């Protein structure tokens, strides 16, 4: 399935321009409609709890400022979308907090583009674990861009971290349109039983990818990649410019084990990561 609607998170962050530019390039590549989504940062539940349609007067000034900031961020989005020559785009102001707004909007898009949380630039009212929250609560793939640096294009080599799980299976499905445009796709068997352990079906995955016109190879690392650090160093060893992986939270037992990998990758990633839960 192709990407026909791409949502990009628009905010006042220093990383927003690079994020919007990459989303715009993706929209152009895939012939997709681009939605720039800015949130007012006031929960919809707060707004509906009031008697009127405005927040109580004590915080009205603050709400006004947040609204103004969101509109200004959307102006920035509009300029970048125009400059990139995106054929079809729209600005969307959602009266909700970032996590709630992005989750609700995700139902009407094929791909969400967000940035990794930058500990040095956490904006007022921002949610530190926004990428993790969104990834765990949407039925869509999330493309997460590193705060360190983002190249303007996604090509080169993709690393698919494959452990045969539901999450990995969703991630590779959600990444298909991206994988089709990469120069090289490497499937890395990601199994805590050690490299080359049988049963995870990497060979069948290759067949499935081939029927989608994606020629991938299997890489068996000499050391296991059962940790986030190992996965990231393998990605840099292979010069991968995209990582595709299942994402896990920390609530349930099996996620407690695997959530550590996700957490490390979310903290230390230096290339774009496509995640699905």
């Amino acid at each position, binding site marked *: *399935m192709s990407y026909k*609607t791409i949502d990009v998170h628009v905010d006042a962050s220093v990383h927003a321009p690079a994020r919007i530019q990459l989303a715009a390039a993706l929209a152009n590549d895939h012939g997709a409609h681009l939605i720039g989504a800015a949130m007012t940062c006031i929960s919809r539940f707060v707004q509906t709890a009031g008697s009127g349609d405005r927040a109580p007067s004590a915080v009205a000034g603050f709400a006004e400022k947040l609204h103004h900031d969101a509109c200004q961020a959307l102006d920035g989005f509009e300029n970048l979308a125009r400059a990139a020559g995106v054929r079809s785009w729209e600005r969307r102001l959602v*009266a909700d907090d970032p996590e709630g707004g992005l989750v*609700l909007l995700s139902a009407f898009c094929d791909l969400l583009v967000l940035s990794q949380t930058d500990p040095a630039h956490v904006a007022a009212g921002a949610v530190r674990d926004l990428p993790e929250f969104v990834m765990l609560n949407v*039925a869509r793939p999330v493309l997460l861009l590193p705060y360190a640096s983002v190249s303007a294009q996604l090509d080169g080599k993709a690393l698919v971290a494959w452990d045969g799980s539901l999450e990995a299976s969703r991630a590779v499905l959600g990444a298909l349109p991206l994988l089709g445009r990469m120069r090289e796709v490497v499937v890395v068997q990601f199994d805590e039983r050690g490299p080359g352990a049988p049963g995870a079906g990497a060979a069948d995955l290759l067949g499935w990818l081939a029927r989608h016109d994606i020629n991938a190879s299997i890489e068996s690392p000499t050391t296991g990649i059962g940790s986030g650090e190992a996965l990231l160093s393998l990605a840099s060893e292979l010069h991968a410019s995209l990582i595709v992986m299942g994402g896990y939270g920390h609530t349930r037992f099996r996620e407690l084990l695997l959530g550590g990998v996700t957490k490390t990758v979310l903290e230390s990633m230096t290339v774009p990561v496509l995640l699905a839960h």
Partner: protein
Amino acid sequence: VFNLPEYVVLNCARPVLIAPYASGEYKVGRNVLIAWNGSKEATSAMTSAIPLVRGADNVIVAMLDPEPQDAPAGIAPAADIVAYLARHQVRAITLTVPGAAHAGEALLSLVAELDCDLLVMGCYGHTRFRELLLGGATRAVLRSMSVPVLMAQ
């Protein structure tokens, strides 16, 4: 009671097309009913149905009991769904269906009333609380379906 279709849907990351046991020749996907309630499962099901319903004569998105607080200013689920599907070359209309207490029965009677030949819906299991509430619809449909059903988790 072990239920194979339900087990498979709940344990894989792909849509599952379930054929009814009632005999008949099925022309899948001329008149399609997509059940949507804003959940992840319903959203997955809707998207996974796109390749199957692109050539359909009618695609109706039944919006089950949409709660007003679920749509803050800036989001209009009915309009957003129609636009989303249109960008995938699927022409759809929406229909608001109140009374989610018996969503399964409501869907089955809509299928009969509108003469649908494919039902698309999210599948909910029975373990967690919200699945306890929503799993009933899945069970009711799996028990009494008379047309093919595309389910996704």
